[in-house]
């Protein structure tokens, strides 16, 4: 007999597949949100109707339940990083928000809280925060780990930079072990190819 969790997980995947729409991202230079230019080394899928709201663009390799790459395309002061779609209407507390003067430790805390709320857990932590040059300027990187309410353990890595008071970055996360570690080199390649363009380059 199929355990309940598997049945529900399967139902959820169907649901997710039913709701989300994808467009293929080919391995050539792409502009994300008009502000981040990256050169993926493999085929990705852009989720055109993600279950989140915010200044983000979401890509996936194996489906949103297994891994996602969230680009932050210029989050401004006072905005949340992202929220579950219609979170406010469903009776959630106001989300934590980004502040322009946040330092990398505070960004890490903000992503922890944002991810925790999205995955309906409190078990979410960032670690190994380091400085890392991003798009030709000062940036930072940290790892994430979280245990979602679906009992799936997810690992991730975030890179980001604040330019002119706006947050630009990318967070790749996936179900351990397979759906994260396997693609980490691709994520790193993608990050090293990143340039800020358009409004973000001014």
């Amino acid at each position, binding site marked *: 007999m199929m*355990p*309940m*969790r598997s*049945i*529900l*997980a399967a*139902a*959820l995947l169907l*649901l997710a597949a039913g709701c989300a729409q994808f467009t293929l991202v080919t391995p050539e230079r792409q502009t994300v949100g008009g502000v981040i230019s990256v050169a993926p080394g493999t085929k990705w899928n852009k989720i055109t109707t993600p279950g989140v709201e915010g200044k983000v663009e979401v890509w996936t390799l194996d489906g949103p*339940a297994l891994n996602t790459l969230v680009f932050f395309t210029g989050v401004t002061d006072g905005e949340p990083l992202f929220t*579950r779609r219609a979170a*406010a*209407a*469903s*009776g*959630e*507390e*106001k*989300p*934590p928000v980004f*502040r322009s*003067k946040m*330092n*990398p*430790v*505070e960004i*890490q*805390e903000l992503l*922890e*809280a944002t991810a*925790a*709320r*999205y*995955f*309906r*857990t*409190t*078990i*979410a932590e960032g*670690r*190994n*925060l*380091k*400085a890392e040059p991003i798009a030709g300027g*000062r940036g*930072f990187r*940290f790892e994430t780990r979280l*245990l*979602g*309410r*679906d*009992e799936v*353990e997810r690992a991730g890595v975030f890179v980001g930079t604040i330019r002119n008071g706006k947050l630009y970055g990318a967070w790749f996360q996936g179900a351990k072990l397979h759906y994260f570690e396997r693609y980490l080199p691709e994520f790193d390649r993608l990050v090293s190819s990143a340039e800020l363009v358009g409004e973000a380059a001014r």
Partner: protein
Amino acid sequence: MSLTRRAFGAGICGCVLAALARRGFAQARPVEPGRTYIAPGYRPPADSDEKGLWSLLDRVERERKTSRFLVRDVELNAYVREIVCRLAKDHCPDIRGYILRTAQFNASMAPNGMMEVWTGLLLRCNDEAQLAAILGHELGHYLRQHTLERWRDARNKSDFGAFLGLGLAVAGLGAVGQLADLALVASMFAFSRDQEREADEIGLDLITQAGYTPVAAAEVWEQFIAEYQAGTAERSRQLLFATHPEPEERLVALREAAAKRDGARGERGRSRYLAKLAGVRARLIADELALRQYGRTEIVFDRLLAQSPDDGQLWHAKGEVYRLRAGDGDAARALKAYETALGTGNAPPETWRSIMLVELGAGARDRAQAAFDAYLKQKPGAPDADALRMLLSQ
């Protein structure tokens, strides 16, 4: 109905807040005097509809046993079991309690004897009597087989499908995070207004008979109302307070009923409660902060601090509420709380880390550096030392 259910699904409450889910279900039916309870050791007859319901919940329970959110602290589990048995007496062997690491305020009871206690409830109770009041209420649902009653009632109505198709109902909630709340969904659907009232009365009887302070039940509900009013979840608040006068009615009823039972007499079990919780309390506090529900959390921490003014861990946590909220005047509020924490002599080393972050935000680099040095002195192997050094060097 589905909107209401969705508001709940946001993870607020099964039983305590079941007022919300009950809208539209409520039917006037007088509570009977001289109630009969389910027999100790009861099992549903084979091939009965009830047996089917139990089988479903047994399956949910098997998953609970392997949940990574299950709190396995042996002493704490034994303690909750002890309270349950003190209340449930002959029914004790039929009840299986599961403590789940979930920061919201809730407990729930399934008809097969599976009881869930969320850590958010444990954090919020002032003492053993308050926890016993909630557990007693949940036992009331069990003893009167409320879920079964509600289920059979629902079957005769058009909303039966929504209830029976538990899987569908859960899928309808439409979010990854809610899958594990199956039993909660089941219990939410189950209870009518009359059932809640009856569970309140039975709970009061059970805690009174067990020697606990009867007024604890009214207190815990009052605390919850106060906290909820401080929240920013407009939609839920509207549902609970604007369209539904019942929380206040319920509070009045609980107060009056406690008064009839010589309300303030009886055992509190406060020091025992705090001692049993000591092993997990830091985690519960961190989980509460992770919710980033600043207004509600401030109320919870202030209430706990009023009772434990020398708790450095709590003072630090209170400071964190302000540091993380980062609104006007919050930096000063945070520093004041950290200072109080340090004054207790039992502040966690992270208090210095927090001071460093606030000072850095204010541009006071020397003070930030001094706080960092104090942090490392108290926690030499701090895993975030390099990250903090990076901040100081930028």
